[in-house]
């Protein structure tokens, strides 16, 4: 029910008074309402649930999380090698 998936906006349009977008999910295309993410632009990734974009995904935050995790992973590996030699 609360499944929400990231997709990339390829086009913005209006349906009556509702701002809408065409969204590309790795090749599958669907539409979503942008009423809750009016700032979203073509090229942005949005998190879509039941036909509504709930948030624009924050690229800088995603990159920061990954950097932190990669650093942790490298530390663990270094530890392992140290442990094997001891």
């Amino acid at each position, binding site marked *: 029910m609360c499944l929400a998936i990231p997709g990339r906006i390829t086009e913005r349009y209006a349906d009556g008074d509702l701002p809408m977008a065409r969204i590309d999910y790795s090749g599958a295309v669907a539409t979503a309402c942008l009423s*809750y993410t009016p700032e979203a632009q073509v090229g942005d990734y949005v998190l879509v649930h039941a036909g*509504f974009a*709930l948030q624009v995904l924050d690229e800088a935050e995603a990159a920061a999380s990954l950097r932190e995790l990669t650093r942790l992973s490298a530390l663990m590996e270094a530890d*392992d090698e140290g442990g094997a030699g001891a």
Partner: protein
Amino acid sequence: MKHLDEFRDPALARALVERLKRITTRPWTVMEVCGGQTHSILRHGIDQVLPEGLTLLHGPGCPVCVTPLETIDRAVAIAMQPGVILASFGDMLRVPGSHGSLLEARSRGADVRMVYSPLEAVTLARANPDREVVFLAIGFETTAPGNAMAASEAIDARLTNYSQLVSHVLVPPAMAAILDDEHVRVDAFLAAGHVCTITGWRLYEPISARYGVPIVVTGFEPVDILDGFMHAVELLEAGSPKVANRYGRAVQADGNPIAQAVIDRMYEVCGRKWRGIGVIPQSGLKLRPAYAAWDAEQKFDVGDITPQEPAECIAGQVLQGRLKPADCPAFGTKCTPQTPLGATMVSSEGACAAWYRYGRKSAT
């Protein structure tokens, strides 16, 4: 897809599992609130690689599972009335009511439609002015913005042949109810990431402070979930009960204020019964009284509803983390996804369905 694949990296996942093992020095019990996370945990076998001292509990975060049987029975009764089109989300149509599911009502002649977006039911009402379109509006905070926008579209356009049967629930009061439950011990929560995109993470600070439990806002991919467990254990080991946001790419402190404003304009907070659990105060949303004309419960008189739960189903205990699906005598025998007795075996987010699908048999 970007924002998914990077968070499925096996090397990162392995490092997180290893780190979790090293930092866990005492036994801890962590509950993942969201059924989507339960599903992801079982699918990727995360439950089988966690350190021994770390006990997982599945939470009540499956909207379809907690929708009261009365609501399903009422929806079936309304759908059977002449001239009605009843629309809802796919999972909801398959949940067994006392006298069958909505899909079974369809085979008995009712006009029941599955929608992906709640706006589709508004379109149905516009296209069928001589019919009554009833939308069964259920869900958590994640789904409330769409359902509220659909209500707003229909009501602003004075669409008199549209109404909503609203059975929305709110997550934070249910977390507090679990912490108040003397039969369950929860040391920390993984908070439901997609609920938090709307509510924001700051909303959880009062619960974290009042009960002294860490609450870690967590995403849905394997690396997200392992990272959530790692931070929960770090906070527990450090004796630091606070809220941590580990789903920063999607969740902000204050959530989505535009969505919150539309929800607040259409719906108000009310007490709500959770199936198998009971009434939790201030845990639901209903249409505001000004919109009574669009409230299907008031619009359609279907007489008294007397729901009958199947006697063997212990889904209420499962949803509260008191028992595991395999503790149920009907699990995998009388109750399977093909012949579900309870909603937790129907929904793709239900714990019973996830256990069945991924072959978990014992209550370990």
